[in-house]
């Protein structure tokens, strides 16, 4: 691997590739930020460790101007790729990218590259996995009541749940999916109580998104027989008996492709969408949960249909 198009006189023959990522929450959030960080670490291992790929991160950057400062700072330090992992960073990327034509910027989740040659945009079609989870859930529920716990009705929290409801309805439109929003990405206590409320109201299956759903999983676990469907990360480790499946954001493919393109001289201008089709989204069935074969088959059928395009999930 050697640099090609852009002239880099000082570049040594074995140059360490450098990626920096800016994330709104912690790299350990078991959700959005962690999904990206895990992918980067996986790519690093694959490429041969720190000498091949240097990684730097800034986490907890919920303040956009701070994130902008970080993006600019990393870019000026000569990082090859700067990932702005949060849709709120879009305008910062738009502003900074023109100043660093040699640096690749990737940002998401969104689809807009602003027409710039060194900006990639990426997003996840969370509704697809939501649909699959919905199908599975609909087939597993006995009480015909499913609870959804979410933070605020925006972004992929919303698209995931919209997809999930579609999936449920495709199986049985009489199932009652009730939703609660806590108004906060971090209020775990309220999220837990929301989950307990669903359970008390008869829900035997729960799902939801954001870093605070760990509380909902805890509630399911405490109850002992309520099932959980995850998203963003594989959440099986939090409740090995009760997590049926998780939609996993797998950014590794995308990252590898962006690296390759960067090395080949294409610094941006494209949009990546994680989908079931391109392997960016995966449904991780939890091996610890004994999923009835016909349910699993229905789930796999849904995956196939979405991949083939015979089912279209509306975001």
């Amino acid at each position, binding site marked *: 691997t050697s640099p090609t198009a852009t002239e880099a006189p000082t570049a040594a023959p074995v140059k360490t590739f450098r990626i920096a990522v800016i994330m709104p929450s912690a790299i350990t*959030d078991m959700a959005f930020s*962690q999904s990206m960080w895990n992918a980067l670490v996986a790519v690093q291992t694959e490429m041969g460790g720190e000498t091949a790929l240097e990684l730097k991160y800034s986490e907890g950057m919920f303040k956009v101007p701070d994130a902008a400062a970080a993006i600019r700072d990393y870019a000026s330090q000569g990082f090859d790729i700067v990932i702005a992992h949060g849709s709120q960073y879009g305008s910062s990327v738009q502003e900074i990218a023109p100043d660093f034509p040699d640096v690749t910027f990737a940002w998401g989740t969104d689809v807009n590259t602003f027409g710039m040659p060194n900006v990639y945009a990426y997003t996840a079609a969370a509704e697809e996995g939501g649909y699959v989870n919905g199908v599975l859930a609909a087939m597993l529920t006995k009480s015909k009541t499913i609870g959804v716990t979410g933070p605020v009705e925006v972004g992929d929290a919303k698209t995931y749940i919209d997809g999930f409801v579609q999936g449920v309805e495709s199986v049985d439109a009489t199932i009652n999916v009730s*939703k609660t929003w806590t108004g906060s990405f971090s209020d*775990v*206590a309220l999220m*837990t109580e929301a989950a307990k409320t669903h359970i*008390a109201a008869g829900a035997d299956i729960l799902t939801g998104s954001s870093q605070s759903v760990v*509380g909902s999983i805890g509630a399911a676990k405490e109850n002992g027989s309520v099932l959980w469907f995850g998203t963003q990360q594989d959440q099986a480790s939090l409740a090995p008996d009760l997590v049926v499946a998780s939609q996993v954001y797998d950014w590794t493919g995308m990252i590898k492709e962006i690296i390759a393109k960067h090395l080949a001289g294409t610094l941006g201008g494209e949009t990546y969408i994680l989908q079931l089709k391109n392997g960016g989204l995966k449904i991780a069935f939890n091996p610890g949960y004994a999923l009835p074969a016909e349910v699993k088959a229905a789930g796999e059928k849904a995956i196939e249909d979405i991949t083939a395009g015979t089912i279209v999930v509306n975001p």
Partner: protein
Amino acid sequence: MNDVFQLSVIAGILTSAIRLATPYLYAAIGETFSQRSGVVNLGVDGIMLIGAYASFYIVLITGNIWLGLLAAIIAGLLMGLLMSLISVTLKAEQGISGIGLYMFGLGLSSLLFKTTIGTVKTVTGFQSVKIPLLGDIPVVGKIFFDHSLLVYGAFLLIPLAWWVLEKTTWGLQIKSVGQNPAAADSLGVNVDRMRYTSVCIGAILAGIAGASLSISLLNLFQENLTAGQGFIAVALVYFGNWKPQGILWGALLFSTVNAFQLWMQVLGVKIPSDIAIMLPYVLTIAALAVATNRVRQPAALNKPFERGES
């Protein structure tokens, strides 16, 4: 809408409310001790976080919930000593010391979590203990007598705190340094020591409040787990007129409305969720606005004491 008035729903709301109230009760009763002695501690949320982390970590590595509780107590105590050092010995402005303490607790708890645990995990914490006989009463038993020990503890704390403040020499001394430290001092009451003790009791209870989240109600730890509950707890002290029983009503009101709005969402009552979430805050303000007979705050609240200053 009719669903809301079903017995099971009402029972559900009350059960939730009792759980939700637990951390507020610990923290607000603790803050009451602190404020009764004349020290406003705005750092409650930070102490709760440290307590939550410490107890969670200890339970995670030892599996012993009692050691976990002890860790929360020790962590709270250390934070209390820090707060007292700054605001009592060094007589710093209390509001700002508290904000500093909050930032410190928030930062340190996350840092420790990152370096020692790394990712969200769960533990087996305090389990529900059904009280014999009482717990078997239909509906009522489920609402009141089937909770974890830390939940019972929070409610037992109310009469205990009342007793300490109203019936013991020690409570008398705490109140005296909050009302007129010069007078207390002139009778040989050690003002600084009383304030240290009260702030530390407050901090220990805040630590337990954190533990009630991380090893009883949620059984997990995450960065900023409390999400600002400590500030609400401070507000509840004002709501409760610095009295344990007042705080009980405040905490129950706040958490009942919160439970109520969750149930409304679950039952699909058509109200935007954001409006529903605002409800507890709005109603708490409204309740205080219409309540009569407001008590004056401890006269020396927020005033550092130095001998010879009248």
